[in-house]
Every structure is written in structure tokens, then in C-alpha cells.
């Protein structure tokens, strides 16, 4: 478990467009799934090949999840690597600033 409840991640790549653009910084709730279960539609950060990937949950099968990028044309996800273990999930991406509002 991560002692820090929140983490910041910078998005690298295009598989989550238009939801997340490359270079965008998002906040992740590391404790999101301590007391509640993942739900279809959640945006998650998870461990994959020594990296952290960000994808959307499209299906839940007991302790396994199927994930997919919002931009399936340019995304390596469960269509290719199959299910991921719940243990691989690091946290849930929190809502970020509304689209079109730049600070």
C-alpha cells in the first residue's frame, strides 16, 4: 500500500485521448480501492512491465480486470495482453480540471 494517499502522474502517449492528452498531469487516489471495489468505467493506473499504465476498466471478472484505452486505435490494452490482476492496480485517476479551462 502506498503511504501517500495521492500521487501525480504525467500522461505519456495518446491511448487515452480525448480524455487525457499527452503531457497532462493527473491526480491519482492511491487508496481508492482500499474500501471499495473498482467499477467499470473507472480510470486506473496499474503496474505493467515495470511501468505504470493508465487505462479505463471495461469489464470486471472477480479478481481480474479488462482495461482499454479511450483511443483504441492507438492503445495496447486487454485486447492484446488480456486480463490484469487486481493487485496490479495502483490507484484511481481523480477528476481533473474541466476541459477547456487553462490556468
Amino acid at each position, binding site marked *: 500500500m502506498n503511504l*501517500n494517499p*495521492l*500521487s*501525480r*502522474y*504525467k*500522461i*505519456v*502517449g*495518446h*491511448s*487515452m*485521448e480525448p480524455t*487525457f492528452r*499527452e503531457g497532462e*498531469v*493527473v491526480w*491519482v487516489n492511491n487508496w481508492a480501492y482500499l474500501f471499495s471495489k473498482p467499477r467499470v468505467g473507472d480510470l486506473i*493506473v496499474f503496474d*505493467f*512491465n515495470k*511501468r*505504470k*499504465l*493508465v*487505462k479505463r476498466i471495461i469489464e470486471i471478472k472477480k479478481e481480474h480486470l479488462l482495461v482499454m*484505452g479511450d483511443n483504441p*486505435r*492507438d*492503445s*495496447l490494452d486487454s485486447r*492484446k495482453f488480456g486480463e490484469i490482476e487486481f493487485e496490479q492496480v495502483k490507484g484511481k485517476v481523480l477528476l481533473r480540471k474541466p476541459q477547456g479551462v487553462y490556468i
Partner: protein
Amino acid sequence: MNLFDLIFPVKKAYAHCDIPCGVYDPKPAQMAAESVYKMVEKILNPTQIDENDPASRVNYHNNMTRYVIVKEQQAEICKREVLILWTDFFKEENLKDFPELHDLVWKTTKFCSKNKREVSMEAAKELQANVDKVAEIFTKVKAAVK
């Protein structure tokens, strides 16, 4: 580095793949073509309306509308997926080995439109057959690259 950055360092979350971007596959087009075929089959073989049951008529129209919507959507998906393969995956040099490619893609996408306009088993079968031919060329091109 300020305290904020120290507590919340920015890490990287990869929203792409370990392999070069642009993973192509004819499967989505084939699945869409098959879906079009299934919808045409359902439209042409509807469940009969029970005149004594008002719900039966409502269900009939509801189901029929859904079949038409799915047929329309899947034909559009099929067209898009085939065009993506055509414009992004296939290269000019592939035309040497497969000179029929341009014509095949043109006919395939035409069949997508035909299946939108019409309800025809023949057109649906033709669409599937053409998409399969595109997939066949795709497989050969990919095998040659490896």
C-alpha cells in the same frame, strides 16, 4: 524542488504501448462485417407479432429498430476500419504484390454503404467476403514484414 513537488513528485503514466504506435488488425472490420450479416439475418427473419398481445407489436418494432441501428453502426465501423488499414497500414510497395488492393478496398467500402441502404443477405455476404480478402492480404503483408 519545492515541498509540494517533494510530497507529490510527478511520475509517468503510460497511455500508450511498449511497441511502436499503430497496432493494426483486420479483426475489427471482420467482426463489424459479421455483425452486419447477423443484423440482416435478424431483420429478414423477424419474430411474428402476436395480434392478441399489444406488447408483442411494441417489442417487434423495438427489436427491428435496434437491428437497423446496429447494422448502420457496424457498417460504418467496418468502413472506417478498412480505410484505416488502407491509408495507414498498407504501403505503396504492397501494391506490387497486391495490385488489386485499391479496387478491393473501394469495393469493400462500397459494400459497407450498400449494406446501410439495403437489407440484403447477398450484400452482407459480399461485404464479409471482401473484408476477408482484405484480411488475407493484411496477413500476407504482415508475414512478409516479419
